[in-house]
């Protein structure tokens, strides 16, 4: 008896060890590929990264070319995208989760939002071209680009908001209702603050996705060569991914170096956004814990 008992235990332990090794390898593979890519890009791009690169307009001469219009365009785009998608997404998420009736229509909407989150971005580009650029006659403007990206990330924000609201324990709602709080008071003072870190994470992930998109922007006709900065929402624009794509497709090696430097800037902005999200979440989670 004792022998077989020992044998079984050691086999389970073996499985345990195998799993932890496989898991570690999987993790290392993901992180490793990213690090190799980053190192490769950094080796090419770092030497090109300087102040004049950040403050120059694109040029035919790769040594004069900079990404000023691209990164300013990206900042404009993100501002427009965020201004449209964040309030709409949060409000839609709150409505669907807290106020909407659970019926067939709600189920239909739910399935569709989940599907929308998985639709290839170039399809959103087509939609943006048809709806914003042509039908609403916004032209190839920052507003059209931002609105297109907002559509793209709206489902992600809605889903994240709903998940975050659902993760708040029922007991918190009950406590608030039992004291005579209205639904809105319960939401405003208890549920939303508790769900805020989750919603915030969803927003930043969505924005991080939007910042790297080039296909929908090319689809609506964003230009690569722009020698001025957008002054208002109706101005044409370019963005970092488009500039990078443009440079990569040039035959001269010097432009590939510029592209690498551009990628570093894009990565830096994305990492900063993620860092901000982590910091904010940490701050709020310290306050809200059960």
């Amino acid at each position, binding site marked *: 008896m004792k022998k077989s008992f020992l044998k079984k235990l050691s086999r389970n332990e073996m499985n345990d060890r195998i799993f932890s090794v496989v898991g570690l390898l999987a993790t290392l593979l993901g992180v490793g590929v990213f690090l190799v890519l980053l190192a490769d890009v950094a080796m090419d791009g770092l030497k090109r990264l300087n102040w004049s690169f950040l403050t120059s307009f694109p040029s035919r001469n790769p040594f004069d070319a900079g990404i000023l219009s691209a990164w300013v365009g990206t900042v404009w785009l993100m501002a427009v995208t965020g201004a449209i998608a964040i309030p709409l997404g949060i409000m839609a998420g709150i409505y669907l989760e807290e106020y909407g009736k659970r019926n067939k229509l709600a189920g239909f909407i739910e399935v569709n939002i989940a599907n929308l989150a998985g639709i290839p971005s170039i399809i959103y580009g087509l939609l943006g071209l048809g709806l914003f650029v042509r039908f609403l006659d916004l032209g190839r403007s920052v507003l059209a680009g931002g609105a297109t990206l907002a559509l793209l990330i709206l489902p992600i924000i809605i889903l994240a908001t709903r998940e975050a609201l659902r993760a708040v324990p029922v007991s918190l709602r009950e*406590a608030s209702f*039992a*004291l005579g709080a209205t639904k809105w008071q319960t939401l405003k003072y208890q549920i939303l603050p508790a769900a805020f870190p989750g919603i915030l994470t969803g927003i930043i992930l969505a924005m991080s996705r939007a910042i790297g998109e080039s296909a929908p922007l090319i689809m609506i006709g964003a230009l690569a060569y722009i020698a001025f900065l957008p002054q208002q929402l109706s101005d044409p624009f370019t963005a970092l991914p488009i500039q990078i794509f443009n440079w990569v497709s040039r035959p001269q090696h010097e432009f590939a170096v510029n592209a690498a430097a551009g990628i570093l800037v894009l990565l830096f902005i994305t990492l900063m956004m993620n860092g901000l999200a982590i910091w904010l979440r940490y701050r709020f989670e310290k306050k809200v814990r059960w």
Partner: protein
Amino acid sequence: MQKIIEASNLRVSFGKTQVLKNVSMTLHKDKITAIIGPSGCGKSTFLRCLNRMNDMYDNFKLEGAISFKGDNVYAKETDVIEMRRRIGMVFQKPNPFPSSIYENVAFGLRIQNINDKKILDEVVERSLKKAALWDEVKDRLGNSALRLSGGQQQRLCIARTIAVESEVILFDEPCSALDPTSTRKIEDLILELKKHYTIIIVTHNMHQAKRISDFTGFFHLGELVEFGETKKIFEDAKEKLTRDYVRGDFG
């Protein structure tokens, strides 16, 4: 003896599952009524019907009537918010808000737009004293309520209910997550509160029902099998089912 809540011919179902079948019960003012019965007998559902906490479930359906001081709780024109303030509730698992001790007690007043610091200070102190918690927390009202022990959290939840001047307090197995010492403190507190509040307590613990309640109702499979003075239920019940249950033959 004055009656305060009256449930008549209550039939409750969630979707297709019927949970309460024709329950009628009269609850008396400033008394402790215990509701006992095996798991799944509908006792918690009954309790939660009294302040309409089941309304948050979409498939909840209720027939029959509940009146509180003569007003129909389920009438269309009932102000559910005001009703819930007057019929407070303490839950099975202590559920303080993730904020300070002070704000936990003040929340019920703040949502009524009472924000005067002087009034709040006074109510917080009075409520915590009534809940026998003041001495333990008076020096750290600004600390997170989540760092209190389970028993202290439960007393904080009671203080929170007292602060909004509830008349009835519904307890849904308030001690099932607590150790014996904390349980004792809550029981003493409930006995003390009886002077000014009507208390209805669902409990799994028959000794608890026996120790603290004036009346006891025994639920089984969604029906109120027997209701009467606690002494009578435990020593001289009419129904065989009740006698078997209080003796511990099943449950």
